[in-house]
């Protein structure tokens, strides 16, 4: 028996790899851990020691306590309604035979909220149901008040249900239609099959969608700021008011910190409870797939009626935004004008320029970083991989308000001062929004057998050549996804960035918010339209870029 202690061989560390690894650790330490540490310090250290004084002070106010409860109520309501809408749409697309054009139409509607600035549904709702609202005039109910819980709830549901739709579409597609066939062959009706097979199998997906929406609503800052008014305070807006209205950064930090607790609970539930509960019904070779079964004629008719109504309403809202950007004063003087766009390109031009600049730089840095982190964590045996993966997703998982306040505190004093610079906004966008790229890269790499990379090495290619010629082309779709997401959210973000803007660097979303608070809805609408157009243009450009770089990117099946 030979002993293993002596002469043990170790793989030689790669200097470039180690340098990159260290670089990422430093980046994440400075832009993820450090701000959070400073936030926690501000909340828990006062009068020279650890104390709960700050938290106590904040929550001695009934208004703040009410905000906490309101936040939870709103998040639950949005979670339930959004998941229900998402399921209706997902079921219709995956299980009912709809004409192609209708499916295309639905996916277009689903994409709209993703590429719009966060206020879009709020602005539109205000224009329709707010003071001087279009529908109110048509229906002759002038006293109707949209502000408060109702308006926030409707606006957030419309903004976030596409998230539930995407989650549930994936879940429903993974349910083997043979199971439904089996139920039907045993004499079950379509509706009974739906209730006893399809719906129960979707429960983990529904739970996941609910948690996702709950988290999104909890962290949403933009919608309540416009829609909630004074009667319905929620935590993110309260934190903002505390800082901008009362110049009490410590109080704001404390309020945002309270937001962390439910956000973390939701995240943990999602990862350790829901993910283990998915029923796996597809494995390896699927047999012949049969035609989708619906849910019975009556149920289908009801479903289609509901989704048609919702779809039309969404289209109506978006058309209102577009129309609203072309009139003088919405609801008062409805004559056609291009003044609002003139306003965007003169007064608002700096914001447009700054936002595009920040989005471009963030997208460039973030997509490279996302691929690097995803690749290193999944393909290289380096120390602390799990910790690094967790850290890289932390800024994304936590509510934007928390991160924004943490950044504002951390980089306004101390060793690193970045207040008012472009660096601070870019660093936030990169560390917060590269998460999608990391996740997409991870998911794609898990599907790519390492033997492909080994085959390349075996044929004599170096590690770098292997990475360039084999790995990158294969994960190109994931890189494209990450890049698109980074650009969109860098353009539309507000909840975190609003704490970081300055005279020198302004953002489109912040300008939209200013317009709304000054009741310049037409200008706000014009800004929104311009923003959507820029995002659409960028999507197209990114698609073109990737299809040129990796011509096989669009090949439908990739086999093996």
């Amino acid at each position, binding site marked *: 028996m030979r002993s293993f202690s002596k002469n043990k*061989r*170790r*793989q030689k560390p790669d200097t470039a790899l180690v340098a990159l690894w260290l670089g990422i650790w430093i980046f994440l330490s400075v832009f993820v851990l450090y701000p959070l540490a400073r936030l926690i310090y501000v909340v828990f250290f006062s009068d020279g020691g650890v104390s709960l004084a700050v938290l106590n002070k904040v929550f001695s106010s009934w208004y703040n306590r009410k905000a906490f409860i309101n936040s939870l109520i709103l998040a639950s309501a949005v979670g339930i309604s959004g998941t229900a809408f998402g399921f209706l749409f997902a079921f219709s697309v995956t299980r009912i035979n709809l004409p192609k054009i209708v499916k295309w139409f639905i996916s277009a509607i689903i994409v709209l909220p993703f590429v719009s600035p966060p206020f879009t549904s709020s602005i539109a709702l205000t224009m329709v149901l707010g003071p001087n609202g279009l529908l109110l005039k048509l229906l002759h109910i002038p006293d109707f008040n949209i502000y408060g819980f109702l308006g926030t709830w409707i606006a957030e549901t419309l903004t976030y249900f596409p998230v539930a739709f995407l989650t549930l579409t994936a879940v429903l597609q993974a349910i083997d239609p043979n199971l439904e066939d089996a139920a039907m062959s045993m004499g079950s009706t379509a509706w009974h099959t739906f209730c006893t097979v399809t719906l129960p199998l979707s429960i983990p997906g529904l739970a996941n969608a609910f948690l996702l929406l709950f988290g999104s609503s909890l962290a949403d800052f933009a919608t309540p700021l416009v829609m909630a008014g004074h009667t319905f305070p929620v935590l993110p807006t309260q934190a903002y008011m505390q800082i901008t209205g009362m110049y009490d950064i410590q109080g704001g930090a404390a309020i945002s910190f309270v937001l962390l607790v439910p956000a973390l609970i939701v995240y943990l539930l999602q990862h350790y409870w829901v993910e283990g509960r998915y029923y796996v019904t597809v494995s390896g070779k699927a047999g012949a797939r049969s035609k989708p079964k619906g849910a019975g004629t009556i149920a289908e008719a009801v479903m289609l009626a509901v989704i048609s109504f919702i779809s039309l309403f969404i289209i109506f809202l978006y058309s209102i935004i577009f129309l609203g950007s072309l009139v003088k004063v919405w609801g008062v003087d409805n004559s056609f004008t291009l003044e609002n766009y003139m306003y965007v390109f003169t007064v608002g031009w700096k914001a447009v320029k700054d936002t595009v600049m920040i989005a471009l730089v963030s997208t460039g840095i973030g997509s490279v970083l996302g691929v690097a982190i995803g690749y290193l964590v999944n393909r290289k045996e380096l120390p602390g991989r799990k910790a690094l993966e967790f850290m890289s997703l932390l800024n994304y998982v936590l509510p934007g308000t928390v991160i924004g306040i943490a950044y504002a505190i951390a980089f306004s004093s101390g060793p690193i001062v970045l207040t008012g610079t472009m660096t601070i906004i870019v660093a936030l966008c990169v560390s917060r929004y590269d998460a999608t790229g990391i996740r997409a890269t991870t998911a794609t790499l898990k599907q790519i057998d390492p033997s492909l990379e080994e085959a*390349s090495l075996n044929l*004599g290619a170096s590690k770098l050549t292997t990475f360039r*010629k084999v790995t990158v082309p294969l994960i190109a779709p994931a890189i494209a996804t990450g890049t698109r997401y980074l650009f969109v959210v860098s353009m539309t973000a507000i909840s975190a960035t609003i704490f970081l803007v300055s005279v020198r660097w302004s953002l489109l979303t912040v300008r939209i918010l200013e317009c709304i608070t000054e009741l310049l809805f037409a200008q706000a609408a014009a800004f929104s339209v311009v923003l959507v157009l820029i995002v659409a243009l960028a999507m197209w450009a990114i698609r073109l870029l990737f299809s040129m770089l990796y011509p096989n990117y669009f090949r439908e099946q990739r*086999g*093996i």
Partner: protein
Amino acid sequence: MTVPIYLKHLTKVFYSNGTALKAVDDVNLQIEAGELVTLLGPSGCGKTTILRMIAGFETPTEGQVFIGKRDVTDIVANKRNIGYVFQNYALFPHMTVFDNIAYGLKVRKLPAYEIKRRVTEALQMVSLEGVENRFPNQLSGGEQQRVALARVLVIKPQVLLMDEPLSNLDAKLRIYMRAEIRQLQKKLGITCIYVTHDQKEALAMADRIAVLNEGKVEQVATPFELYVNPASLFVADFIGQANILKGKASSIKGELMDVLFHGVTFTVQIDAQRRFKFNVGDEVALVVRPESIKLGNADNRSLKGKVVSTVFLGDEIEYAVEITSGDLIRVTEPYRKDAHLYSEGETVGLYLDPLDIKALPV
């Protein structure tokens, strides 16, 4: 130029969550130039890990790998000039067949006309022409297999490593391809290590077979030798089918040993090298192949048993017989027109030819 492979004290320990798993345990193996050796064993026996260490995808915990006279243990995978065919073929899905095969040549910076010539030649070698511009997912499993083979042969590797290359093909194609691969290997005279868990494939292709169990080499021998003279119970059980009867050595005289099994004494031959492993009074395992047992009427020279199942397979008849010791014995008889088919429940005598019995220490 064809070269031998030499594995010296090759060991691999995997560490996960604080526990160490010895996947490969002090393997010593010499593969001659131009020889095809299969590594055969159940899944998890370390056969693929050995192959991956030779290719340089894994670093041995201990020991060395020699290709020819060169110690390649510390040489990175892309400098070894070894051909490796993967179980899943590992064809690059984003490249055409031509680009897949040309990959290794482009890395070596050969001129374009030379690349084109050699790719064409490689495709001819595996009898696959006219698919240069297709993508891997547009090919059948057998065609993908050929492309994978062409892709490694085109770089003229010193040795060829194959990791269960046929396991994703259907049964008929597997038999066809194994003959073709063997022919090609002989023609090129390339030293080859072929990993499989399919004993028929190993027996059909190999010059020699190395049987592995739990990271250790159990026996290295020609297919014939392995079947006739298994060195251990594991090998006897793994190669072909074997009945294993546990009896007691009652006397040993020279190369003959008497073994008592449930009242019947079998005189078996033991070869000189194994002589010292047996002592009178020890428990001894008797390995009997199902086809070397004859059924007849029971007498005092035979074991007595009752037929539990009879399966007619066309070319042979397979019986399971429960003998008085309680052991279930498998017997196969070749089909003859006048064969007697014993029915289930019938009492029979089992006649074992002492020359076909292999004694092994327990």
